[in-house]
């Protein structure tokens, strides 16, 4: 809505700080995502990861943001997270020959009879499902940010129905 558009000025402080922070934020996001032993969880971790990407996109613009998170990779992550979660449910049914219910996790690991339940269940909940949730949340939020941040001068011309 502003009448004259300001030039995109590059700010060294912001860019350098973002470059420094970006990997750290992602690392922290991964730590929270997998750290179900503490207060972590998939959703929290995924949100932190998405926040890191959104910071990067805000500072460096869409084009460079797309380089970091291409659309195809984003769509893959979105589905992959849910494949991990949903697939765990199917595998539970398949491995137990339809005697266990959907997502009845001890049935997941065929060897759980020998090594005990902890392997399958903590692996599933702590890693497979949490990582699945985290990937989906991250990819969805980043994708929403990409799509909702629109430029007026681009869209007003060709955007009519």
């Amino acid at each position: 809505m502003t009448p004259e558009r300001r030039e995109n000025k590059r700010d060294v402080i912001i860019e350098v700080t973002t470059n420094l922070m970006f990997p750290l934020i992602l690392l922290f996001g991964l730590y929270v995502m997998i750290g179900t032993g503490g207060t972590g969880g998939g959703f929290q971790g995924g949100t932190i990861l998405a926040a890191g990407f959104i910071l990067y996109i805000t500072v460096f613009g869409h084009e460079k943001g797309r380089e970091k998170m291409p659309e195809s990779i984003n769509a893959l992550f979105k589905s992959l997270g849910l494949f991990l979660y949903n697939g765990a449910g199917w595998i539970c049914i398949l491995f137990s020959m339809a005697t266990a219910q959907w997502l009845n996790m001890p049935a997941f690991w065929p060897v759980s009879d020998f090594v005990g339940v902890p392997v399958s269940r903590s692996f599933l909940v702590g890693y497979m499902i949490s990582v699945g949730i985290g990937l989906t949340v991250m990819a969805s939020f980043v994708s929403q940010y990409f799509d909702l941040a629109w430029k007026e001068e681009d869209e007003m011309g060709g955007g009519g129905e």
Partner: protein
Amino acid sequence: MMEWIVQHFLEKYNFWIAMFIIIIGLTATIVKKNFLKKLIGLSIFQTAFFLWVVSLGDVGRDILTSWGLKTQTPPILWMQAAEKGYIYANPLPHVLMLTGIVVSAATTAVALAIVIRIYQKYGTIEEDEIIEKEMEFERRGVL
């Protein structure tokens, strides 16, 4: 009278705070004619509601009881909790409302997308002006 006030208001102040915010949010959702403000009102409504449900799981009413000090702790299980006299908060409201927050975030995203489309189409997000423009478009036969 005093007892009535204590029983209905002071013991349940979490409910009243949440209800106050809920009323603000719901009223804003209905009254405001700006689409974005409506959405903000809806978010306030949902968040206040989550606040109340999470506060339902609180278990720390009596700090001092006859058998000693009792303090609330988050439901992350640790060995010494029972020895030290901590009790766990109820995890189920947190579980439910974590889900609810996600749902409200997704709703907000879709609603924002629709608001942006409306802005691209009509150049405004005030409901009155949009209705006027619709009528004008109709007279001109544009739409």
